[in-house]
């Protein structure tokens, strides 16, 4: 399990970006749920932790694609592929993650960068 931060340090409506490879976004929803998905939008390189959370959805800050925080599914285009979800564990007021071992759906540019292409 990867420790993220103390629950008290992540207010409702806020997100925390964990610098794993690829990075993970941990959201504390207005309803008090803590949910984790891949941070990188599957459409183009943008951090979903910078997006707007409404209910159980996050809107990508760049092109307004929407992803369901519980399932990772695309709720609004232009994104075509879902993000991975990660299991969240709360223990003694600390948020931990169990990372998915599924292959991530990274956007073409993030893949090019990871593969050594120029940014």
């Amino acid at each position, binding site marked *: 399990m990867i420790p993220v931060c103390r629950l008290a340090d992540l207010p409702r409506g806020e997100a925390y970006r964990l610098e794993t490879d690829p990075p993970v976004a941990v959201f504390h929803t207005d309803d008090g749920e803590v949910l984790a998905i891949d941070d990188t939008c599957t459409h*183009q390189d943008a951090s979903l932790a910078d*997006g707007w959370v409404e209910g159980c959805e996050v809107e990508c800050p*760049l092109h307004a694609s929407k992803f369901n925080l519980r399932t990772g599914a695309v709720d609004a*285009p232009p994104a075509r592929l879902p993000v991975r979800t990660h299991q969240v564990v709360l223990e003694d007021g600390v948020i931990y993650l169990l990372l998915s071992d599924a292959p991530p759906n990274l956007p073409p540019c993030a893949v090019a960068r990871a593969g050594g292409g*120029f940014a």
Partner: protein
Amino acid sequence: MKAVAVVGASLAGLSAARSLRQLGYDGRLLIIGAEPHRPYDRPPLSKEFLAGDIDEAALTLEADGEDLGAEWLLGTAAVGLDRRERTIRLGDGRTVRTDGVVLATGAGARTLPECESLAGVHVLRTLEDARALREDLARGGRLVVIGGGFIGAEVAATAHGLGLEVTVVEAAPTPLAGPLGQTMGQVVCELHADHGVRLLCGVGVQGISGGRRVDEVLLADGRRLPADTVVVGVGARPCVEWLAGSGVALRDGVECDAYGATSVPGVVAVGDCAAWYDPTAGCHRRVEHWTGARERPAVAVTTLLHGGAAAPQLPKPPYFWSDQYGLRIQFAGHAAGAESVTVEEGAVADRSFLAVYRRAGRPVAVLALNQTRLFTRWRRRLATALPAACSS
């Protein structure tokens, strides 16, 4: 309504087709496209695609396995609309009959006469344009970009990244003063100098010369700029000539009410070709942004199917972004009519800031450079604020 034709197969057309199906329309759906391609994403054409970072498959807009149950008539433009017969005439001679029409023909790049006659002179709008320009940029050498707007600036930044020697020529004293205002237009155009790209402002282009291929750009003040490749980025015009005489009212695009209805019943318009009425500003505005092309079709299609009986939600303030030199520029709202602009976070000198435009003390627009998170909040806040008046 038994048949609906969507004229235009880009983002706005695709979004309209999706909205039709989402709203329960199950009749015949025709999608007519002048280009031979299925809908593709245009913003990367001046950035990641031009740089060679992504391929054509990555530009696809349809989801894997998505089936709209549509008949695609691609590679042939619509050339006429007959509202009495309810038919659309196509460039290849065919005629299609339809009950409802969504106009989504977009805009085309403005050109100079030399674009036709000289090799190495490009515009950038379509996938074919981008392929041809990418091939020429791979030759290296000197690139002259005519026009310092967003397309010109993005091409300049991409070409600089590819190692070309780049000069941008802008006729106005400040590039981007229209969309961003004088102050911030000046700030954003300084990004060129930051990266060693030459920017010449306040000077027009007299002509482009060469033999078979371009070799120089002649400026109005007599200067000559040697060039191996030239990009003309001088704006776009709505593709509405084919509607002349159809009865659809035109004014810098298709004139629409605040919900996308045109002057002809059963015909709505969306995307770059449409000038929607903005009730809070009291004028028509043609919004050439990607997000408008994605969001407005849902409103227009509701109008088409329900004849305006339902009260669709008004669209959000216009939003666009630009990526230049690895920096993310985001803008929402209307800069025209703003009385002040103040930096509220970060610093201009750091190339990381957020600036708010205000009129009568109310925020009317917001600009961010590498401040994505804060920008999202302001963009939402703007949706509830008073929009700016039209500049004209």
